[in-house]
């Protein structure tokens, strides 16, 4: 890392301590993403191989998909990339407040996407009767999109850890506070994508909101408690250690986030859109 004390200015595009000028962390992420491409490559290949050679009695995708909903959540996921880019831009300018807002926004958009997937999976299993084991299409579909969903969820968790880290005090302890803060993030966003967003989609499709509240009272109460804790812990608490020098950390997670988006564009095309040709 270049020393900000020595130069008084941070060059976000060149690290003079490495042989190539690329920061080590960034290179690690790029190499990992290359590897991750192959994970998705193998899963997408499996899906397409069996889609092109379906056994008799295989599920019919167009009768199962809800393309309007998936298009909407795809749009939200793409917009989350915009917020991610804004978060990187904010930290490069040293604006921590704006970085925090953008990180939370990215996470929330990620949760809307994940909530859409939770709704979709539940709907497919309960209404369309397609499970992991009763057709090969179910096996490949759930494994592929589930792996992608896991990537998004891990991304939300990483962003949450980054968000909490922006509160790390410049001196003194704070491990317990950090842990509680992360717990609040995990509970809030976990409730958001497992219960709240799928519930709201059901309400849009005609379910009753009070019924929903009664049905999931406990998780919603936990979510509201988490949200209150999040707001309380999110107030300024004196000098923090996080700053412009950490831009590379935010940027590295950003690389991952954008990659997960790009992979979704491929999956959305190969798994969903091509079925409507």
């Amino acid at each position: 890392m270049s020393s900000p004390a020595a130069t008084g200015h941070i060059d976000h595009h060149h690290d003079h301590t490495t042989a190539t000028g690329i920061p080590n962390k960034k290179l690690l992420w790029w190499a990992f993403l290359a590897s991750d491409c192959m994970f998705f490559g193998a899963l997408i290949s499996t899906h397409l191989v069996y889609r092109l050679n379906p056994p008799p009695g295989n599920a019919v995708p167009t009768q199962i998909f809800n393309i309007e909903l998936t298009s909407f959540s795809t749009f939200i996921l793409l917009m989350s990339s915009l917020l991610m880019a804004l978060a990187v831009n904010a930290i490069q300018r040293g604006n921590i407040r704006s970085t925090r807002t953008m990180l939370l926004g990215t996470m929330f958009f990620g949760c809307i996407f994940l909530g859409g997937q939770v709704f979709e999976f539940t709907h497919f299993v309960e209404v369309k009767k397609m499970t992991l084991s009763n057709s090969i299409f179910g096996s490949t579909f759930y494994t592929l999109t589930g792996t992608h969903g896991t990537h998004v969820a891990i991304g939300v968790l990483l962003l949450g850890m980054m968000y909490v880290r922006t509160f790390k005090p410049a001196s003194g302890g704070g491990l317990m506070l950090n842990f509680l803060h992360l717990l609040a993030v995990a509970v809030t966003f976990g409730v958001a994508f497992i219960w709240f967003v799928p519930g709201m989609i059901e309400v849009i499709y005609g379910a009753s909101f009070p019924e929903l509240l009664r049905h999931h009272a406990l998780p919603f109460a936990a979510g509201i408690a988490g949200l209150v804790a999040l707001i309380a812990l999110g107030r300024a608490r004196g000098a923090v250690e996080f700053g412009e020098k950490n831009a590379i950390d935010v940027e590295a997670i950003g690389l991952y986030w954008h990659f997960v988006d790009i992979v979704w564009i491929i999956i959305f095309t190969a798994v969903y859109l091509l079925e409507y040709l």
Partner: protein
Amino acid sequence: MAEALAKHAYTGGAHAPARKATFELFARPTAKTGLVSWLTTVDHKKIGMLYGGFAILFFLIGGLEALMIRTQLIVPNNRFISAQLYNELFTMHGTTMIFLAVMPLNAAFFNLLIPLHVGARDVAFPRLNSFSLWVWVVGAILLNVGWLSHFVPSWKFGGAPDVGWFGYAPLTSKVFTPDLSTDLWVLGLQVLGLSSIVASLNFIVTIINMRAPGLTMMRLPVFTWMALVTSFLLILALPAIAIALVEVMFDRNFGTNFFEVSGGGQPILWQHLFWVFGHPEVYILILPPMGYVSEILPTFSRKPLFGYPIIVFSGVAIGFIGFGVWSHHMFTTGLGNVATAAFALATMAIAVPTGVKIFNWIGTLWGGRIVTRVPMMFALGFIWMFMLGGFSGIMHSAAPADAQQQDSYFVIAHFHYVLIGGATFALLAAIHFWFPKFFGRMVPEFWGKVSFWLIFVGFNCTFFPMHFLGLNGMPRRTWTYDSNMGWNEGNLFASVGAYLLGLGIFTYFAVLVWSLFKGQRCGNDPWDARTLEWSIPSPPPEHNFAAIPTVHARDAWWYEKHHQEEIAREKAEHIKAEESHGGIHMPDQSWYPIISAFGLLVGAFNFAQLHHPVMMFGNQVLASHLPLAITGLVILLAGCYLWSLEGPGGYHLHIAADGKVTESRGDH
């Protein structure tokens, strides 16, 4: 100065106590000797030695498994071991030798040599490196834990894995292997893959980003180039088998149909996914050995390597083409004429860069003053034996001929010529060559040569007859055979050869152990070599280089030896400059990599037996292993969380004019 540095490295007192960090659950370890120092080390040299030690242990275990196989086959209709145990032995022999012996031995040399070759003080991510090591240990435990059920009947793992090292579907389905051995095999390989990917990412960043000033890519030692290509192969090939293993795991535990014919699955998909990984894997095993040989041959020919750029380019070409030849393992599955022809052509094409390398090595020897020390003899053996393996490989590339050789002992002969005659010979050369560097003692020449000849003769006696056995129709993996098949003499000869080979390997390692304690002490550069690791004391101090070297030529240390004044001036300047920035920065040790790996062990071990009840002293305590698997996951996550908050930490070393090293912790 050299001795003062060396003394400091591993025998000095504990580090200065770590300063309290902002986020800290318990104090960072600072022990420099003893068990804790090894468990928490982030030093690439210690990690390399741990990899090497474990790998040699498994190499010997894999060798014993092979000797049991050869004993069973020594005479027709033998009943030395049961057919079931035979299946377990050939499965675990293959899996062990590939994943637990050759790959980690290569990883050991990656760790030991890459930072020294690029002129760095450690790898790019030292704690991640420690994590790779311990995750590898977890994978090794998962693969081998099944053996215990032969000794403790109440541990019902169903014995060791017995589905063959490539675990073809549908043999791995619950119908054919209902016991836990296959689940443990699946998770063991999965965990080993994780370890390799993490380690490779680390090496890629280290090689590309941590090169010393002046060390351009085309000045990198060939070994390091091959390590880079291998690392890329690993990160790109392992995902294919990871997904294939996930699919098998889902088929076995969660009712999916990926390879279940009754549910519309196609077992051939396993073969494709496996070999998309499996063939690059072959080059993952052999490219680093090509690197060792490319370092050893010039040293003992007293000549620079012949055609350096061509060797590097050939290595990269092998890496590329290696991804396009996987279906030559599947010529008999009925791919269709066009696909078969294409894969046959690609397979013939990949022989070209390999052949180019052979010619370059011969060109290096040509006109050189050849010194036949033990490493050189193994390296020369490598060229010859690897070529023989290559010739039978070319025979396989002709699809019609391959249809005759498929699954016969001819294939066994072929891949043992490339993996023992090739990879293992080069590894034995490398161990002998770099032993003095990392232990500061020489291996006696006479006993080294005795072990070489025993291994060389034993190896050829074992595997050369297998060509004829294969062409006479002896199938691989056969538990026994009738006496009227015409295979009696060949098998007897091969088994006696195997004992000779075993004796040679025993001699080799016995001599190493002896040398560890009694070998003649050596200086920095006992072989008069060419690369940077020989410029520092043996064994190297923990910070490797007192001054980060500036590289002026391809054979960097050779240049330094012949421009001593210029280099001394440069080094003095570097030491002064670094001291003015606060001294040499060293990373702190950490508990979290091994804690996270322990969580992975608990999680994976219990996940493998997910649907089975948890028994304790014959009583059922839990209906399934799910709670225990989740406990492991929580330990893993907690370890990673605390690790991420802990920060790299670190302390500084200061080198005085007389070579004395002092430590400090400060805000610099």
